Each structure stands twice: as C-alpha cells, then as structure tokens.
C-alpha cells in the first residue's frame, strides 16, 4: 500500500474539522475526496502535507509514519500538493516557475553558485531539462516566457499542476484542480490529470465537479462534517443515501 491515514483527527478549538478519518490509496489509483463545503477536505490535505499538525492519528507513506515532518520534508519524500486557490509564483515566468519546482531534487548551494562548480551546473541543466519536459507535457509552450500573473486562469491551473509535477512526486494531492474553469469548452485539464496517472503517479484529488469525479476516479471518499460517510466506486457512492442526504439535505434520499 502506497499511502494510508488512520484515525486522523483535527480539533480547531471546539470545532472538529476532521474526525477519526481513515482511508488508503493504492499505487496508480486516482482517489477523490468529495463533500459539501466545510466538510474538512482541504484540512485533510493540510494535515497530510504537514502544514497543520493533527490532534490525533497517523499518516503512512511508503510504510513510514510522516506525521511531524515539515511540509518541505514531506515534499522531498514524494508527496506534493497543490492549493485550492491557484498558487504559482506570479511574478516569475511560466518557465521559471517550472525550473524552481525541481529544485528539491538538487543539492548545490551558494558556494557552488558563486564558483559555478561542475555540480551546480549539472544541477541547473537538470532543472532546465525538467522544466522543458513539463512545459511540453502540460501544453504551455506558447506561454513559456510570459509572467505567470498575466496568463489565463486555466493556464495558471495547468501551471500549478506542472510546478507540482516538476518535483517528481509519487503521490500528487490536487485541491480542486478544475476550480473556476469551464470544462464544457475545454477538458484538457482532465486529460492532463489522466495522463499524469498514466505516467505512474498516484493521485488524490479534492473536487466539486461531479463530472470530473465520476469520470476519472477509481474510488471516492465522501466527507461530511469531518467524518467519512461513504467510500467506494463512484457509481456506488453516488447512489448512497447518506451521500445524497449530505449534499441535498434530509428527505431527498427517499425520492
């Protein structure tokens, strides 16, 4: 098993944001976490990636407990997350965004930089090559030298995926990767996510758009008020009474 959380709990003061949550992800899967607004989905990502410390529970990755590790350490181990509000380095070009995404796989520091040592130059070449590769993969070549702040929202979404990919993760956590994008016109974002999975990277995603969830997930975990209320294949979960009730309110389930 690539990844699992057991008994994950987070109290914010009196509020239980995540309540005794357990689920697992197998190598090569796409698992979606869904639930109404405020169900605690993003908090789960923050707990997994070390941005917020859990009150209780543990997170296992490649057979190793990672609770207590800091976010950059967890990224180095191979879990990279994106943020709900599209987050890229807005002052830098698209290409420069991707280059720094691969920084964690290099070691050279400022002495290497000042001396332009062989190691530093090799590291730089690797980062540049990685950035070219990802640029092509996410289809942003036309935007290569544009400042990230000035490209369209959907291109920014792809860029944030690309920057995360540049870290060479084995597990990618995507927080609403299609939020704010009209998929009726262009579903290239979804195709990118599928291609990421096909390249061997395991994906866990938080999503609101049922079309996305139903279309690409192997399994779905449903949260409500921080508790897991259902888990299973997308078709099964979408017929689950508790899920329908959570989304539409009591009384709809019977109908």
């Amino acid at each position, binding site marked *: 098993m690539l990844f699992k959380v057991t008994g994950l709990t987070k109290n914010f003061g009196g509020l239980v944001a995540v309540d005794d949550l357990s689920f697992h992800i197998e190598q090569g899967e796409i698992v979606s976490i869904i639930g109404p607004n405020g169900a605690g989905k993003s908090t789960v990502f923050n707990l997994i990636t070390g941005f917020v410390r859990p009150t209780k529970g543990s997170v296992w990755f490649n057979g190793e407990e990672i609770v207590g590790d800091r976010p*950059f350490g967890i*990224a180095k181990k191979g879990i990279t997350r994106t*943020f709900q509000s599209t*987050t890229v*380095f807005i002052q*830098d070009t698209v290409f420069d965004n991707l280059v720094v995404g691969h920084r964690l796989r290099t070691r050279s*520091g400022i002495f290497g*930089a000042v001396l332009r040592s062989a190691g*530093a130059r090799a590291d730089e070449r690797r980062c540049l090559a990685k950035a070219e590769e990802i640029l092509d993969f996410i289809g942003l070549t036309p935007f290569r030298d544009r400042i990230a702040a000035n490209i369209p929202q959907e291109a920014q979404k792809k860029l944030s995926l690309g920057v*995360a990919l540049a870290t060479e993760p084995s597990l990618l956590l995507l927080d609403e990767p299609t939020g704010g994008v009209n998929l009726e016109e262009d579903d290239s974002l979804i195709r990118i996510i599928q291609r990421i999975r096909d390249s061997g990277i395991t994906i866990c995603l938080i999503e609101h758009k049922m079309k996305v969830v139903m279309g690409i997930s192997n399994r779905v975990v449903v949260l409500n008020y921080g508790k897991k209320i259902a888990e299973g294949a997308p078709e099964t979960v979408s017929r689950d009474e508790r899920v329908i009730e959570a989304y539409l309110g009591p009384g709809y389930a019977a109908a």
Partner: protein
Amino acid sequence: MKKPDQLKYLIPSILLLAAFSVPLFVTSRYIYHLLIMSTIWGIAATAMNLIMGFTGQVNLAHGAFFGIGAYTTGLLMLKLGVNFWPALLAACVVAAIFGFLIGLPSLRTKGSYFAIGTLCFNVIVTVIIDRWDTLTEGQRGLMGIEGPAPIPLPFGYRITFDSMTATYYLNLILLLFTLFVVYRIVHSLAGRTFRAVRGNEDLSSSLGINPFRTKLISFVTSTFFAGLAGGLYASYIGFLSPEISDFHVTFEVLIYVMIGGIGTLAGPIIGAAILPFISESLHALAAYRMVAYGVLLVVFIIFIPSGMVGGFKLVRAKLRATKKG
C-alpha cells in the same frame, strides 16, 4: 532578438569603463571622497538587496552589521595591532556570525514582525557599542585606524594605498567582487530558491524548499558583505563612533536600495553612486535636505516602487511594445 542582448552588455561596460577611468579626469580630493564613500555604500546596499530585494525579508538591522564590521576591523587593528587585511576578513566573518545568531530567532518571524525585530536588534547593538566603554571607547570613539597595509609584489615592488586613487581602486574592486558574488547567486538555482521564498513561502514549502534555511543563507551572506563595507569604512575614515552602527545608517542604505531599484543588480549601486552627490549638492538647504530626501523616497515608493532601474526597464518595455504594435 540581438538588440536587447547588446544593450544588456553595453550599459554595464560603459559604466565599468567610466568607473575605472575616474582618475583620468577627477583631481579634487573632495570628489574622490564622495566616490570612495559611494563604493562603500554600494557594497552595503548590494548586500542589503540580497536579503531584501531578492529574498523579500525587510532587514532593518543592516546598520548594525555595518557597525559590527567597522568595529571589528577598528578594534583588531588598534588594540591588537592586527594587519588590515586579516582585520577586514574578520569584519566579514564576525558580521556573518552575528547574522547567523540573529537570523536564527528573527527569521522565524515574518513580514513586519521581522522588520521590527531586526530594528530592535539594531538599536541594541548601538547601545552596547556606546556603553561598553572598556572595549569600544564609547562616545570617545576609536581614533587613528590605519589604511590598508601595502601588498608586497615580487622584485621589491609593492602596492601601497596612500593615495586617494589607490584607495578608490581598492574599494571599487571589492564592490565589483561583491557584485560578482551576488550576480552569480542571483543567476543560480540558489537564487531561484531565494526568489521562490520571496514569492510564496507556502508554495515553496510544498515544493520541498525549506524557507527558513533559505532565508538564513541569504541573511548570513548579506551580513557578511555588510561587514565588508563596515571594515572598509573603518580603515578609510580612520575614526569610528557608535553612530556608525545606528539605524540611520540602515535607513541611508535602505534609501539607496529603494531609489536605485530594489531587486535589481544595478539599482543599489546606482542609488549609492548618485544619491550622495545629490545630497551634497543640496547642502545649501541644510536641515531641509533630509526633508527633500524624505519626499523623494515617498514619491518613489508610491509612483516608482521598483526604483530608477525598475522604472527604466518599464519605460523600455513600453517603448518596445509600442514599436512592435
């Protein structure tokens, strides 16, 4: 595509040539003095720009590190009779050690908290230098710090630093060295890491970058060169008093960085080269000089936050865009 590149090398080359040919047309000791001070402030401003401009941390203790460097050189030379060159290196190292010790707690804070924390440190350093009479001579100051010792060359020749010209060249070369180091850092993966932390700390963390470590490296490097500037100042002026470490120095350097162009390589040096001359030419205004300075700073921060170099780049980009369109 060729043109911008040519321009990129042309302007620095002309400036470099002008800087090296200064002795051909400057004879006034007073102008020399201003130029030497510009090189020293240029080093301090370039150092400040590394942590502030390229790493995004508003360090308001720069004057303290300048002062620590100055006093390290001054005390080693006066009290222990150390030669100028090791005393200058010691200035850099001692300032960097203090940078590390101060960075450890203060860089855990962010934004305005870091600015306030470092400003407090600056005040403390000045008070300590002022009160620690037995070591620093307090308000009496350190007097009679000598210039650089001659560098022996083969065949009995040697480089001496008695003349203004030689002192000017020494400071100019160390300014270029500082600029070279910062240039190499900025144009490397390490520099990209600095800029990533400046741009977004949370995103940097999620990409496996340790923001604290990154800031600490930038901060220590910055204080190393602040110490260098201080050491050069001590030996050039020959006299030190506690005021040389206080926060007015910080703000003086800050003004050079802001008006010259924060986050650009040339900006701080241009600021440090031009502003002292403007300031001197405003001497007739006496106390109002500082008011004029203040107004200038406010105007820049509101209308041209990227400073002279940033403003120049903007104008050039606009001109190019209209030419194309």
